[in-house]
């Protein structure tokens, strides 16, 4: 009932609007839109052209490659790029899983009256305000295999316990190991042509931990906003129905948070597909490209090796991956705008 006046106001706006004013609005918007058309769409178009050209040295050569998809064929047959795609996939899965899990746990723990609630929230969100480079250099020091976490594990007596149980000590090489655990390609038909082992590169684990440290606070804040929006009526009704404690969360509140989870997966997912700074500062390509990702590949091919067409092609693949996640999200937003 209450929203009847709003459409009336809207019609009034249209009636009072003078001819020519919409032109003023369009004129004022045009500089920004022209800039975006050039800097986003125009430049993407040019990168696309470079990616099918013969430009692979410091001298520009925009003649088209023959066959036209030649650069992409070469890109996908490179074992390094196959490894990069595997790393992006593994990194994204682990990072999203842990961020959502940690974010939800923290939000649920803070969804109550508790002493110092906002202090806790601010501590957990704090890393979000920092640069990936700061995060990268400090976690690189923490995951130094000769000291860092391994020393902490030692100091906490974990290895003492393991030794006494007759078990091997726990002192992983973290960022410095080329080891890849598992080999799906070996028993999955169709994957046997790959030049990379489809498994979990162990060196990627510390990077995932650093990324979760930095961005799980974002998931927590999103969940807290969502929890704040769930009305107390819902909670009270559930309590009156005899549901209590954990069951209210499991059966009612967590299912209501589903749209929030989807938003978190989209936002953090696209960050993860683009990831560059953090890995660049923390481990670079890593041993045997164990932590290499397309972002680093593009940078090195373009700025170090001046193989512009190859770098451009890899960047277009990054753009496609991000678009798969983002375009449906934007389309949904557009629909909700009216």
């Amino acid at each position, binding site marked *: 009932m209450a929203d009847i006046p709003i459409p009336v106001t809207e019609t009034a706006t249209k009636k009072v609007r003078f001819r020519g004013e919409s032109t003023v609005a369009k004129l004022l918007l045009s500089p920004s839109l022209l800039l975006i058309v050039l800097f986003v769409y125009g430049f993407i178009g040019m990168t696309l052209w470079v990616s099918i050209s013969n430009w692979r040295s410091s001298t520009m050569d925009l003649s088209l490659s023959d066959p036209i998809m030649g650069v992409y064929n070469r890109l996908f047959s490179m074992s390094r790029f196959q490894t990069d795609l595997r790393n992006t996939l593994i990194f994204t899965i682990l990072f999203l899983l842990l961020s959502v899990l940690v974010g939800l746990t923290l939000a649920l723990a803070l969804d109550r009256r508790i002493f110092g609630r906002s202090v806790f929230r601010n501590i957990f969100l704090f890393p979000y305000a920092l640069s990936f*480079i700061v995060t990268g250099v400090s976690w690189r*020091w923490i995951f*130094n295999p000769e000291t860092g976490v391994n020393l902490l594990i030692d100091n906490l007596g974990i290895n003492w316990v393991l030794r006494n149980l007759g078990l091997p000590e726990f002192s992983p090489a973290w960022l410095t190991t080329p080891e890849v655990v598992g080999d799906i390609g070996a028993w999955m038909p169709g994957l046997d042509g790959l030049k990379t082992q489809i498994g979990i590169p162990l060196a990627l684990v510390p990077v995932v931990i650093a990324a979760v440290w930095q961005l799980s606070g974002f998931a927590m804040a999103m969940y807290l906003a969502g929890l704040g929006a769930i009305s107390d009526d819902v909670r009270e009704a559930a309590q009156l129905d005899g549901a209590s404690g954990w069951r209210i969360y499991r059966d009612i509140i967590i299912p209501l948070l589903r749209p929030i989870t989807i938003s978190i997966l989209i936002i953090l997912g696209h960050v993860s597909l683009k990831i560059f700074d953090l890995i660049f500062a923390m481990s670079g390509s890593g041993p045997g490209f164990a932590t290499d990702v397309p972002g680093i590949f593009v940078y090195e091919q373009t700025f170090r090796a001046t193989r512009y067409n190859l770098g451009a092609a890899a960047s277009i693949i990054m753009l496609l991956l991000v678009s798969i996640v983002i375009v449906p999200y934007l389309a949904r937003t557009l629909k909700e705008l009216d």
Partner: protein
Amino acid sequence: MASHPTSRSGQSRFGGVGNILIIVVLTVAVLFYLMPVYVMIITGFKATADVSLSTMWNLPASFTSDGYRDAWTRLSPNLATSFKLTIPATILSGLLGAVNGYLFSKWKFRGSDILFTVLLFGMFIPYQSILIPLIRFLDFINLYGTLPGLIIVHVVYGLPLTTLIFRNYFTNIPSELLEAARVDGDGVIGIFLRIMLPLSIPAFVVVGIFQFTNIWNDFLFGLTIITNPKSQPITVALNNLSGGFAVEWNVLMAGAVIAALPTAVIYILLGRYFIRGMLAGSMKG
């Protein structure tokens, strides 16, 4: 998040075991989130000889500011660059975003929502996919390698986010205000200057601190657009500090603290607005 009625007190619903569990979870989480901060700060205060492998987690044997002094000497030009870059880029992208957001929310025309979405896409692209033409273009207009060039880049790629935040903000301002101004004879620009701009201070704060943080923390543009190491932004300089085989960890950690300080201070002082900007940036504003 504003009000927490008693029904959410939690005590009655979880009982003693649940509360202990929550305290354990929160304690472990606090240790995890503060651990790198602790390491950064204490390592920065150690003397070079004190940064040994076996005492990494210990407090410094004696506090010395040598690490910070050394990091400051090496990073202060880059810190200055970062300020000279971030402040104008934040202000310019904020002002343009305010105009765009106002027009997209209050002066809709046929196709304006589609144009808004087209603009928004620019916020998500991996910047690797525009770098080669961007650098060629900056070179063409003689701004490659210069601070003004980098400022323009940040203003343009900041537009989608600032427009989004302002659009969401202005949408919630009742259209009756516009009607009143209209009766007084104001047009598109007059309404913006006299009605909307004075009302939009909170949105400027949100956009300001959020864009400041984004631009300050950028790495890729600073790395590829500014070629002279002396005039690269602080994030790039910090990363250069960590290159080479013999890393001086106390200097590097002090440098990390210096690079993190401006955004950390903003976050600590204005965290509330920061969270608002973050949520708006995820399109839920």
